[in-house]
């Protein structure tokens, strides 16, 4: 199984907003395009590490992960992405909700 780990903090410790550059420099759509979409077809499993951030605003989260579920089938996104977040464990459930509600 081909696995890749992505640390969101390598992208930015202060992610914020949906759309680049309107909402900021480190936005959800930029992270999705530069990290998630790039590797989505190539890897069987993508582990997203959400530790070491200042926070993870809903705007960033929804556009990055919910946005991915608007491009790929929701079940594929849920199957392929795995999350680590020891700093704020409830964040993982919130991201799952973002993915499940992405097309509503």
């Amino acid at each position, binding site marked *: 199984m081909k696995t890749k780990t992505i640390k969101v903090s390598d992208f*930015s*410790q*202060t*992610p*914020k*907003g949906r759309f680049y550059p*309107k*909402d*900021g*420099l*480190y936005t959800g759509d930029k992270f999705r395009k530069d990290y998630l979409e790039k590797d989505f077809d190539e890897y069987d499993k993508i582990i997203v590490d959400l*530790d*070491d*951030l*200042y*926070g*993870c*605003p*809903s*705007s*960033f989260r*929804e556009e990055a992960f*919910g946005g991915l579920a608007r491009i790929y089938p929701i079940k594929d996104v849920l199957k392929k992405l795995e999350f680590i977040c020891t*700093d*704020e464990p409830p964040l993982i459930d919130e991201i799952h909700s*973002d993915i499940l*509600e*992405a097309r*509503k």
Partner: protein
Amino acid sequence: MKQLKNKSFKDRHSKKVFNHHQKRKDKHYLGHTFTDSANPFDSPPLKKHRLPTPKEFSFIYNLEESLDFFKDFIYYMNNVDLLFIDMRKTESMTIEVLLYLISLHKISVNNNIKVSIEIKTPNEKNLIILMAQSGFSKYFKSNVSITLNHDAIFTIRDGSTNRKQNKDDAETCKEAVDFAMKKLNKEKKDPLMRKLFTALAEMMLNTDNHAYDEDGELRNWYLFAVENTDGIDFYFFDNGKGITKTAKKSLLEKTVGTLKLSLAQPSIMKAVLNGEYRSATGLRNRNKGIPQINELLIHNNVKSSIILTNKILFTPQEMKFEKSSINFKGTLYVWKLKKEQNEN
């Protein structure tokens, strides 16, 4: 030729008037500048107004009177040349009213309103300290001169300055969290610090994306914090349309002629904070930002949080609303991050 003659006469006459004024310029009588406007070649007399601040100058503790002051302030800012803000009778004050004054001043500068504003400071020393803390003297002529502990102040930041300096707003959120971490001795991964970052980010985004119409109005948010004995007081606000007006507009656009909704401001506010309200797009995946702000405001380590928007002052921790008859143009959030008490 006739025109030239007239011009020459006018020049000679103006010179005479000028010399006359040179002799009398800066003449003061008991602190009031003398103004002579009898001559037809003088510019029209300055329109002046003296506006006293309320005895208790605070949105939090004296909403109606303080909003009434700002209603007058905005009127006179646009209609006189010289505006004296007389704070001498003010006995108590909270800092958000000063920050709001600063924001209105920035708007007047942005709109090229040629008004000169002078401040007569309060008599109480603690109020003068408050004024110095707010950074007031950078913006207004006043006699505030006091030495402060700058280490305790997160000086006022604003979105329009960030834009001018190409600074990412997220950087300002980080600076505010770093300030709080240092003062409260907490780590970045502390749940309260993470909530602070996300709430600030969502406040800024909400201002940029929803608070203003596309009509060239100065889009801006302001952030300020100050440490005191029991914690850190944070103030965030914008001069936009306000939460309930934005939400009401979207609800009306979505439901007109189909549903009868309760469009009273407190009902709208509750729905927005609980995430029940969805944007005009109707998408469930949107508008999660304000509920995330609310999570900070009702946190156990936060106290005295309020939201003032349009005609309501809301206390999230008690779910209490105070109504006003005067509209507050914008949204103001105030909250205190509590210091942990040492058990000695």
